[in-house]
């Protein structure tokens, strides 16, 4: 009997690495947008971001913008090559000028829709690298926020830009065994409509990170994010570099939790300074 139990124990099938959240047998923990292609995948995510930025040259004319932003994201992959994604933000913004004439706005931000096309991968099952193209649109869904008297808040305090922004991107994911992976994404933002005073500048974002997964349920990610912006009516051009540490934790029920930060270490924009950003995200595969 004892021997039979030993045989049964070793004969029992090992826990499969395949699950919906890691996708197609790939055990790599992924955040929204970095997942390998899988036909029929439906992902839902919420993310919370808190960030701040200061504008102004001196103590006397400095203004601080702080934002707490919730995003509801959903993606669907009708095939292993195509994924569509929608994001709906809810934003709480506070603009504090040096005179303490604070403005606070709460409301819907500018929603985003994106399509991603995987145009190159080395093999269909457990690909080692995946290249994708993304195109999308940021829509002027944010209302103009007013104060109690009906006067619109200043442009910086508004959660939306009031215009459309085209989004174009290129992404790379590499999977090196079950412990290491790498992710990179390049995205260009091209605003093309809306009031000039509120229009966001032409900009680009480059993100690159390496991920180490010591256990099946924990991933450590370290990366760098670069954001560049052209001059606009209200913003100075320049480049900002952030360190991007992140932690991914697999939770029960196919949930993946991501907590991380963006820590600025270079900011070349005249008169503007990015503060640290804290972010958390919960992803579930249905």
């Amino acid at each position, binding site marked *: 009997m004892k021997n039979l139990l030993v045989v049964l124990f070793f004969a029992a099938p090992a826990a499969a690495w395949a699950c919906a959240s890691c996708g197609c047998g790939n055990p790599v923990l992924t955040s929204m947008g970095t997942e390998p292609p899988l036909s029929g995948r439906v992902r839902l995510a919420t993310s919370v971001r808190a960030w701040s930025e200061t504008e102004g040259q001196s103590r*006397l004319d*400095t203004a601080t913008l702080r934002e707490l932003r919730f995003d509801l994201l959903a993606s669907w992959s009708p095939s292993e090559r195509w994924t569509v994604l929608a994001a709906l933000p809810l934003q709480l913004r506070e603009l504090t000028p040096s*005179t*303490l*004439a604070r403005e*606070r706005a709460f*409301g*819907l931000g500018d929603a985003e829709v994106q399509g991603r096309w995987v145009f190159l991968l080395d093999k269909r099952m457990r690909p080692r690298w995946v290249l994708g193209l993304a195109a999308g649109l940021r829509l002027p869904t944010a*209302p103009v926020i007013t104060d109690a008297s009906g006067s619109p808040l200043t442009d910086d305090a508004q959660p939306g830009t009031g215009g459309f922004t085209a989004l174009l991107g290129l992404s790379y994911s590499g999977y090196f065994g079950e412990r290491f992976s790498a992710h990179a994404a390049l995205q260009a933002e091209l605003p093309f409509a809306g009031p000039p005073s509120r229009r966001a500048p032409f900009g680009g974002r480059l993100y690159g990170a390496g991920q180490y997964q010591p256990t099946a349920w924990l991933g450590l990610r370290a990366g760098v994010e670069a954001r560049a912006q052209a001059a606009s009516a209200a913003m100075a051009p320049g480049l900002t570099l952030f360190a991007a540490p992140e932690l991914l934790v697999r939770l029960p029920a196919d949930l993946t939790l991501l907590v991380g930060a963006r820590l600025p270490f270079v900011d070349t924009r005249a008169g503007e300074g990015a503060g640290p950003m804290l972010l958390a995200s919960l992803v579930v595969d249905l």
Partner: protein
Amino acid sequence: MLVALLWLAGCGEREEAVSVQVVAWATPLAAAPGVVVEHGRLVVTAVALAPCETVGAKLWRALSPVSVAWAHAGHTADPSEGFEGGEVMLTVGGSQRLGVLLPAAGRYCQAVLTLAPSATHPSLHAHGEWPVAGASTPFALETRAERVVRLPISLALDDAHRDGALDLELGAVTMPVDLASATAGDELLDAVAASVRAR
């Protein structure tokens, strides 16, 4: 539906800026016996607040081998923002509201007053009557000279102290003896400027 609800839920609020009420407390001009000052007016074209120097800035200035320029507060942001100029009646006692400053929050250690001509008035004007050879004779003296008065103050503006006050006390000033002198207006302006205190 969700989007429509969220769109409708948008709301905003705006707080008032910190402000400083500038009030002058004048003492009527005094004069020698027989002299009647019917009207006296001082023009204040600007009131600016100078921030207190931080400990770090003091240390830097003391230790730095490079000489540090004393930046005029007005070169960075306008600490006299909101003040449109005011006039102090020198023959009326009591408080006279000069205007409101909308400076940045912070600690201020100096108020800088500029006494200068405005678009419509000289820096200082006074008229009345004085005895000349036993007869009461009209006089009018005025000056377009400019004076800058620096006054030590201690004023903190922050979330807990959003409404500040700058009370300018003009002390007792006696009219010049020779009201016919070409420099009488400048003398009176100097005396008034020297009498100003912040309280």
